[in-house]
């Protein structure tokens, strides 16, 4: 039986939703799994709401359509609340993880969403405290792995370290790993 997991990411252009979807895919590679990571491009630029997708499975993935009935939805930006219908297509078995100061119950009331599992984390706070920039993708991956262990946490930690080490600096890499770990600890379910 297929263990395919489908994740939809919501963010704003420039916040790293695409990077997040790719980071998870790279981690899946190191576990010998199959994956797809792809953005949904429109004319948008910095700041516009965007979507990205990740599929992970232990067997080859064949379908090439966008994800309309995700197992998990991850929302990187709290200001998308009320702007984007990010609960669209989420069913009872689904999981919604949102970057927001609200508690899971407050978010449910706000959205009128009574299905599945809801997780919240104030990832913006975590990012500003530790990374000193409002880029929430690494803490949101940390929070996601607490809710859904789709890939091994240590592998992702290594992947973050490698990626930011090569592309930015050791300091930034370590800050991202720390934010990833803190969000993993702080995420709340309700």
């Amino acid at each position: 039986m297929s263990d395919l997991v489908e994740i939809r990411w919501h963010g704003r252009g420039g916040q790293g939703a695409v990077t997040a979807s790719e980071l998870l895919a790279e981690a899946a590679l190191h576990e010998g799994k199959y994956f797809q990571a792809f953005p949904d491009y429109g004319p948008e630029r910095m700041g516009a709401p965007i979507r990205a997708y990740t599929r992970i499975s232990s067997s080859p993935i064949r379908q090439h359509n966008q994800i309309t009935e995700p197992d998990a939805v991850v929302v990187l930006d709290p200001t998308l609340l009320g702007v984007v219908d990010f609960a669209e297509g989420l069913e009872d078995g689904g999981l919604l993880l949102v970057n927001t100061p609200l508690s899971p119950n407050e978010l449910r009331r706000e959205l009128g969403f009574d299905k599945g599992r809801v997780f919240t984390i104030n990832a913006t706070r975590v990012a500003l405290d530790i990374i000193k920039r409002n880029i929430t993708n690494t803490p949101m991956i940390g929070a996601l792995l607490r809710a859904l262990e789709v890939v091994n946490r240590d592998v992702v930690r290594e992947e973050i370290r490698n990626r930011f080490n090569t592309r930015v600096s050791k300091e930034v890499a370590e800050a991202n790993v720390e934010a990833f770990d803190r969000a993993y600890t702080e995420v709340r379910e309700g």
Partner: protein
Amino acid sequence: MVSQKVKGKPVALDGDRAVAEAIRQMNPDVVAAYPITPQTEIVMRFSEFVANGEVVTEFIPVESEHAAMSACIGASAAGGRAQTATAGAGLAFMWEVLWVASGTRLPIVMHVVNRSLSAPLNIHCDHSDSMGARDAGWIQLYDETVQEAYDNAIQALRIAEHPDIMLPTLHALDGFILGHGVERLELLPDDAVRSFIGIYEPQHPLLDVDHPVTYGPMVLTDYFFEYKRQQAAAMERALEIIPQIGEEYGTFTGRYYGLMEGYRLEDAEFATIALGSTAGTIKTVVDELRDQGVKAGLLKLRCFRPFPATILAEALGDKKAIAVLDRSLSFGAQGGPLFLEVITALFTHGLSPKVLNYAYGLGGRDIVPARIHQVYKDLIEIDREGLTESSIRYLGLRE
């Protein structure tokens, strides 16, 4: 030739980068390309390889796609291996010189990232661009996955340069879906690719000053027709040779390629035919339908030019109903380009099953499994009740 199975390296790359890696490994003498929109990351990434000295390639950033293909023609006539990449309107702008490349029998390799043609302005995936070039004398392969984009990029060179073919060859990967989609694939070791492609020995290079040769003379009513007949014959020979090269590629990669791939097709009663990444989505639907007891199958066409009519007719002859999925329109024609080919193939082989044509996915319109289910539902219905509506349909259109 590599006969031993080699171990590939699993990587996570999008289609553009996977193709750029393939070009790096093939290390062509010349890559000429127009560097901005509608260009994709293929050329951006490859130009980094050039800048880093990882290839010997002379990279020519030209002023247009027309010039890109013209530069490839010059380089290929000179005796070099020449490649380019383009997409959408870029391919359309090459149209005139595509015919010069094929008519001059130059084994140029082109990587096409399928995009729609404007207007209205659209940069997303459909097959209008490569289908627009379908009569230009180029061999056309279509990729289902990022792995196939990589594999077809490499095989395209061997196909083009085969002495019994000598035709420019393009392979097409669906824009954004594969171009920007990160997937798992296996990259071959550099030396395995280089051994597979071998050393190109052009028969009549312009730069061989001891054996002067004229390229591109004027040919009038007395001989032009004869040259065109030669091109047609080369396409016919390619039908034999493309699977041989695909077989050889399989011996060391484990990934074998033919002209088409049947997926649960043999005992299927209801079959769809598609090109490109949509074939993967159809496979998942076929599996679901099989679980429900529906004998569904898929014919994925890898090679559109030359069109493998005989094997296609043989594979479809016993089907109750068939759906042809076209990701482009041929305005005013009696269906999409793929549909017309399939109908002709069936008719010329004395077959007349019920066949529907679906235009789908234009301008990047997503094709979800529910739509494919609808297609099979329609097939079952026309098998039972006969054709009551038009056989030309639009899938995923708001009506």
